[in-house]
């Protein structure tokens, strides 16, 4: 069993996979801003269409993609129900002694669902088409200017990369400790919620102690291989901005203009 950390990278070859991760990251941020800014039907139609086209273009099996989006399905249903019953305005569609449903409520519910779906789909698309290493690298390079104001950008990126390296290892270890504690008679499912949370302490403490030990070993191994921070270091992974990455600019511009026109 592997944990789903941040979406999951699907290693297939597509136009979206080959794009420079820096470009993708900036584009996704700009796109998410657009989504939050959009407020009307036609804009949402456009944005949803765009995301669906992108998913198709990324050559990701639809089932995999839907599985990644599934976790927020509950959130989408909850918020749309909330909007359905609380937003007042327009004609009354349904009147019961307890609650009423207005036209504006339906509209808001649908718009909110679409907004959440588009946001989640974009984020998932990014993590499905970009490996965690590429994202780390892109963040490091995009934030590089902040080194001037003493933000430890290299160190942060190194921490992210080590975290990515060790998440599966620690996950495996958690499973092992859990089984060991179950063999000693700990029942993780029984009792009240509080009881069940308390039952997990015998997993957390050994995990914490072993993580510290690992950290110490790793620090020693890094020093032995001559690690001394970011200075004087060259990089193995090189990001190159190619001609295909330029496509992101007109695409973003067109979307912005279209949205501006539709929202006017």
């Amino acid at each position, binding site marked *: 069993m592997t944990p789903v950390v941040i979406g999951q990278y699907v290693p297939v070859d597509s136009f979206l996979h080959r794009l420079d991760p820096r470009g993708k990251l900036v584009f996704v941020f700009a796109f998410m801003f657009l989504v939050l800014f959009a407020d009307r039907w036609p804009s949402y139609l456009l944005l949803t269409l765009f995301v669906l086209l992108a998913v198709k273009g990324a050559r990701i099996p639809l089932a995999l993609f839907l599985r990644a989006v599934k976790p927020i399905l509950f959130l989408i249903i909850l918020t749309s129900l909330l909007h359905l019953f609380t937003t007042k305005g327009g004609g009354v569609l349904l009147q019961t002694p307890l609650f009423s449903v207005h036209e504006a409520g339906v509209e808001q519910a649908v718009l909110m669902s679409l907004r959440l779906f588009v946001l989640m789909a974009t984020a998932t698309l990014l993590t499905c088409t970009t490996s965690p290493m590429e994202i780390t690298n892109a963040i490091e390079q995009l934030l590089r200017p902040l080194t001037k104001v003493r933000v430890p950008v290299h160190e942060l990126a190194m921490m992210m990369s080590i975290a990515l*390296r060790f998440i599966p*290892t620690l996950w495996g270890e958690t499973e092992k400790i859990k089984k060991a504690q179950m063999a000693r008679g700990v029942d993780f499912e029984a009792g009240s919620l509080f009881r069940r949370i308390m039952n997990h302490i015998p997993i957390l403490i050994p995990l914490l102690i072993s993580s510290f030990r690992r950290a110490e070993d*790793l620090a*020693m191994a890094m020093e*032995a*291989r*001559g690690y001394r921070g970011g200075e004087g270091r060259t990089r*193995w992974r090189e990001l190159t901005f190619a001609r295909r990455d330029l496509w992101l600019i007109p695409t973003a511009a067109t979307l912005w203009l279209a949205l501006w026109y539709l929202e006017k």
Partner: protein
Amino acid sequence: MEPILHVSNLRFHYQPDALSKERWALKDIQLTVGAGEYVSIIGPNGSGKSTLARIIAGLYLPTEGDVHVCGRATSNEHELWQIRRRVGMVFQNPDNQIVAPTVQDDVAFGLENMGLPRDEMKARVAQALQWVGLAGMEEREPHHLSGGQKQRLAIAGVVAMQPDIILFDESTSMLDPQGRAEVCQLIKSIHERGTTVIHITHSAQEAFMAERLIVMAEGQIKLDTPVAELYPQAMKLKEWDLDVPLEVELHHRLVKAGWPVRASITSKEDLVSELWRLLSKT
């Protein structure tokens, strides 16, 4: 042979500021290793062998005495980075020494630290992976590798840096027999390439693969001898609760039981031919 490593009057204490200096981790270590030698260090738990390895690699600094690697003193802060570049170290736990999320990134880690240009890095990473037999696994994630593969990856990361000395700190102790055999084979080939190898181990079998064997106990060097000369006195290893290779134990028992075998043997092959001789006589 020109010495590549020279340790003189070394003492090491984990708390040098402590008032009572009774529990020295290392006491009065004198050691000279020539370029290209293959040395194993064997000793019971807590004998200070790992501590010595870390001092040689420039990870700990001596409390007293001097350590010179390739003519540079580890006590000199500026030389320290040069020393860490020249001394590679493969640790015990395969998981805790892999830094990067993919195989190729990990091999490149040490090279990035050295500030090598990318073309050079590419060539060295490809070569190192080929050499340890992990070519074609460049994109693999470390947690999908077996223990032996992880340890071979760690070796690739060290070999790519082209150090003069490679230290193995109980690098085989957490592996299954197959992984152990693979790593031992690599250690042998590293030695054959002319790199100085210092192999710290618990296993007498592995220690006897070297040319020279050092026994450590209670923070001191108790025995330092060429392996060929060790056979006659190998039963001494029992004094420090160490294992004795099977052939030595067998020879010893044959002599004790009164079989007419030679009083001393020099290798496993020697014992085998001695046994053949004995069998053909009867």
